[in-house]
């Protein structure tokens, strides 16, 4: 076991796009016929998860508990559909298990819990991920193991006060091994984001974070921002990712932005075909 997975200097964007597409395929299979599920949000962050798990993150699929691993903290537990697809693509979950998504008694519920290897925190109660990431980053520094912590959170979570407690804390402790990844997809439970969270990037900058803003569905931009986040300059890093719900399926991209996007039982096959055509077109 080498336990090394240093990111290559140049990302293979074509390979990353293929990974993201594979994840989207898996997600469509998981959501098909369920009548609910967070497919729009999941499709939106597939590109980011690809950049993370197949380029930037240092981990060992055969040893998910390797103490020196980089940590990826998914705070938005309801993005589980994308996370399970990603873990399957990375070889930490069996693809055969994915159809149990959201079913009674499944190990893969609609929100993430810590029972699956590779899931670092239970993500359903929003506003708890970044603060735990601060603790993990402190531990990595104490252990001098070079591990970094990547902490995903959403634009909705910017409305949780605890997010800003953690943001101040990371600057106080000069955690340059911590990267916050803010998924701004513009939706929250009651519909479009209606709280005055903008300008997001400026808020993070004012909290002392080295902040970049990118198209969260642009793999070149994502991998470049992640590469820039490796700087050991004493400042925590933030990447504001603007993502498109339903990304990869034009019909869904245009559909009304809602926490649960409406997909009719008879639509899944057509949408999947549209996704394939869009990717290969």
């Amino acid at each position, binding site marked *: 076991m080498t336990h090394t997975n240093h990111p290559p200097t140049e990302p293979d964007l074509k390979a990353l796009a293929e990974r993201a597409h594979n994840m989207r395929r898996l997600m469509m299979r998981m959501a098909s016929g369920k009548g609910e599920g967070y497919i729009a949000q999941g499709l939106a962050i597939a590109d980011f998860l690809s950049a993370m798990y197949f380029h930037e993150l240092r981990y060992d699929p055969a040893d998910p508990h390797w103490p020196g691993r980089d940590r990826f903290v998914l705070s938005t537990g309801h993005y589980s559909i994308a996370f399970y697809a990603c873990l399957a693509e990375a070889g930490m979950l069996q693809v055969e298990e994915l159809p149990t998504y959201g079913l009674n008694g499944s190990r893969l519920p609609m929100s993430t819990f810590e029972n699956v290897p590779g899931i670092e925190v239970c993500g359903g109660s929003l506003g708890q991920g970044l603060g735990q990431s601060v*603790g993990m980053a402190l531990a990595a520094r104490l252990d001098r193991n070079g591990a970094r912590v990547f902490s995903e959170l959403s634009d909705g979570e910017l409305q949780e006060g605890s997010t800003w407690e953690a943001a101040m804390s990371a600057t106080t402790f000069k955690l340059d091994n911590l990267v916050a990844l803010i998924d701004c997809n513009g939706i929250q439970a009651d519909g479009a984001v209606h709280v005055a969270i903008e300008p997001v990037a400026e808020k993070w900058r004012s909290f002392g974070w080295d902040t970049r803003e990118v198209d969260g569905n642009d793999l070149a931009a994502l991998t470049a921002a992640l590469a820039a986040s490796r700087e050991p300059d004493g400042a925590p890093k933030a990447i504001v990712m603007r993502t498109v719900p339903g990304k990869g399926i034009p019909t869904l991209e245009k559909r009304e932005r809602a926490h649960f996007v409406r997909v009719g039982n008879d639509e899944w096959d057509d949408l999947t075909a549209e996704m394939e055509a869009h990717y290969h077109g």
Partner: protein
Amino acid sequence: MAEQVSGRTLGMGEIVDTGAKPFELAPFGTELAQLGKERTEIVGLTADMGRYSDILPFRDAHPERFFNVGVAEQSLIMTAAGLAKAGKISYCTSYSAFITRRAYDFVAIACAHALAEVKIFAGMPGFMNGYGATHQATEDISMMRGIADLTVIDPCDATELKQVVRAVADIPGTVYVRNLRGKVPVELGADYRFIPGKAQVIHEGQSVGVIGTGFMSARARDAAKVAAERGVSAAVLHVSTLKPFDKDGVIAFAKRFDRLVVTENHKISGGLCTLVVEALYEAGLMKPMVKVALADSFFECGAQAWLEHKYGIDLPRLVQAIVEGR
């Protein structure tokens, strides 16, 4: 006349009426500093309450392993959980009122649900300061024992607290401890051994059984001595672990007596009194019982002794409960 431990002026939030009793200064932080030498995976945290939680001896001994997150209890618990999930044992401190009421969801989900190695030493629980309702965690046991997979401990004195500091490092998962700070009395004998989850008789007697937790157990023992002078013999069972609750130990103890007194530095509902009533009812054991605990109320500001007298958890009240059964 202030005494100093790591820069902290003693006085506020300490147990009153220590009288001529022997005491130890800052037993929590002193013991944790020592334990930190033996176990390098231990880290210490506070939310701007280092000075008032006695954790400063740990900071002074292990500055690189000490983190003050500022006035932010949610951040305190999240950070402690993150450190724990990366292999550390996190000892964290603040006032119990702030940890329980402000950071409840974080204790439940980030810590207990994950079986995270977070050891919460919560300062000034119950009536241990005069700052009124904002600072008086009079329902903390009730709240904390409502969380699954969480251990809840209310130590009696400095002797037990020091043992608890060590023991919790080996109790799996998250533990909530009602901390005692400053000049902490030494009430239990040198032969006392804290056993997690086990209630222990700390004073023997014949006709009245007193069941207590925290420093109220020591007060109950003092009251039993006064009662003995008035011809009533009482035994005291000290229940330091509220969760898991030693149901069998309590039932076996209660069976021995004609009547019972239950006492805690906590509201009458949700804590020890409730636990005892549930256990005895389920066992079909009906005994006359007097509860010496706080009413379901918010309380005003005032000196601890004054509050304890006014709201009926002081020594004379316990003596009355034991002697008169009312």
